[in-house]
């Protein structure tokens, strides 16, 4: 699905493919027991991202120009070299779902075994998110607030009624 997005020219179709890719990723998360993340990815990737991209496409065009293959070759070589380097780096990594992997050793046993006694709520992801790592969540709320302010500065507030009264033209 991701590879199809590379080749497609119509931007509208590329947006739809991105949505399907997000939905497949959300199903993958459910299979990997990450239910909170699956809910968020399904809502965000297959919902909000699509709405925003469709909004941007309405405000601009939806076709893409065809390029010559010459400067694509340099990009392809860079991508292949980076991919080979990354695959070489994964040779040392632990096997998939290995219980002895370092990711499961240090802080996580404390979260899974003691968070229910220390905090008293069953959902461990919420207790880590809101209590153990509450400062990170504060930063994230501020990031999304700043993004909202930024888009307001760039695009304006979209006050439909005020603009209509000013210009006085018949809409729709």
């Amino acid at each position, binding site marked *: 699905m991701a590879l199809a997005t*590379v080749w497609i020219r119509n931007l509208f179709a590329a947006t739809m493919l991105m949505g399907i890719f997000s939905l497949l*990723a959300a199903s993958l998360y459910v299979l990997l027991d990450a239910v909170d*993340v699956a809910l968020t990815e399904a809502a965000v990737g297959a919902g909000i991202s699509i709405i925003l991209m469709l909004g941007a496409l309405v405000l601009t065009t939806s076709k893409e120009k065809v390029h010559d293959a010459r400067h694509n070759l340099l990009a392809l070589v860079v991508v292949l070299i980076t991919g080979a380097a990354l695959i070489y780096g994964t*040779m040392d990594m632990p*096997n998939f779902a290995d219980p002895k992997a370092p990711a499961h050793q240090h802080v*996580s046993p404390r979260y899974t075994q003691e968070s229910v006694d220390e905090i008293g709520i069953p959902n461990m992801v919420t207790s880590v998110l809101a209590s153990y790592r509450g400062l990170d969540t504060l930063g994230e709320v501020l990031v999304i607030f700043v993004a909202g302010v930024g*888009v307001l500065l760039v695009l304006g507030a979209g006050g439909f009624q005020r603009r209509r009264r000013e210009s006085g033209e018949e809409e729709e």
Partner: protein
Amino acid sequence: MEWLGLYNYWVVVVLMMAGFYVVIAQGNLIKKIVGLNIFQTSVFVFYISLAKLDGGTAPVYLEGVTAYTNPLPHVLILTAIVVGVALTAMGLALAVRVYEAYGSLEEDEINAQDEQDA
């Protein structure tokens, strides 16, 4: 054959490279943002696949279950997804303004107009 245990990382690397290629090779600005999203999603898949434990269940407390999947990467990815949507929104807003100022979304046409004006 221990390579069989590493296949999830290779899948992620392939996805990541697809997104990376779209960001650097394609000229259309909105296509670049789509590529960036693919790149981000592949990184999330990487982290979530790191979190999985053989024989564990979802990290919600149930009576009698002792092995839970690691909740720490879930938390990090939850934050990262929301930051990703903030980034996409900001990027699309800038792309819309660029289109209104230059009349086109292709990178080379925008550079050509800048060189003409400069």
